[in-house]
């Protein structure tokens, strides 16, 4: 799977539109993931998982900031995300199935806040982007 020039343009445009709200969107996406897919909470027993908690919103910002880095390096995602890839492979070891769940909830969050910017082609590009990021983050698992 390859991100076309059009995909890259779509991803940049929608992430820019989200602007300063990306941290909030990250937190909301995590909230949605924990509520819709409770098994994902097993990785966060060290956090306060009350919906909207400071822990969740703080972690959502972390995730959003990493995605912002990714959006800025669409031509070299493995390079840009190498350290995060190491972290997920050797320390966090989040089962790969969970990346799809969070990715889906990120799409739901964007769709609900930016419906006018979430056309079918943009939806497709974002889905591809998050899938590519997920692949990079799990690429060193074995």
């Amino acid at each position, binding site marked *: 799977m390859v991100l076309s020039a059009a995909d890259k343009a779509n991803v940049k445009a929608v992430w820019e539109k989200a602007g300063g709200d990306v941290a909030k969107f990250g937190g*909301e996406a995590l*909230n*949605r993931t924990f*509520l*819709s*897919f409770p098994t994902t909470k097993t990785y966060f027993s060290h956090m306060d998982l009350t*919906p909207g908690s400071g822990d969740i919103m703080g972690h959502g910002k972390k995730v959003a900031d990493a995605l912002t880095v990714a959006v800025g390096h669409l031509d070299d995602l493995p390079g840009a995300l190498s350290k995060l890839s190491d972290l997920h492979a050797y320390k966090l070891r989040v089962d790969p199935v969970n990346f799809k769940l969070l990715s*889906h*909830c990120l*799409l*739901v*969050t964007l*769709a*609900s*806040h930016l*419906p006018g910017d*979430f*056309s*079918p*082609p943009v*939806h*497709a590009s974002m*889905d591809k982007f998050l899938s590519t990021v997920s692949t990079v983050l799990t690429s060193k698992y074995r």
Partner: protein
Amino acid sequence: MVHFTAEEKTAITSLWGKVNVEEAGGEALGRLLVVYPWTQRFFDSFGNLSSASAIMGNPKVKAHGKKVLTSFGDAVKNIDNLKTAFAKLSELHCDKLHVDPENFRLLGNVLVIILATHFGKEFTPDVQAAWQKLVAGVANALSHKYH
């Protein structure tokens, strides 16, 4: 068997009442074909699927999307009895249509995303969770008779 709480049922039925099934059905099927192009494999007879705009404007896509989502409405009406309600459709999708059940999960998630675009803030995390349960239940019910 999946059990829906009273709150979950309310979240589902109150939103469903506001859905334009014809429009949303066409959009859901259209987005499925755009975002996951390999799903077009089932629709060779649909004509022009060569671009996102061709797909979204295709009258056969819209008509079939309406059919699919109308059937989904049966799920909302039979929420405590999904496997029985979808038994015949499950056999059809296995024996005649030969559809991999993974496609039901893909369509269910596309439907959730469309609800998010239509309802915005009203599509809260709690409401989404109820809908994720429903689409998973429908996908499971449609897979139940596979052999």
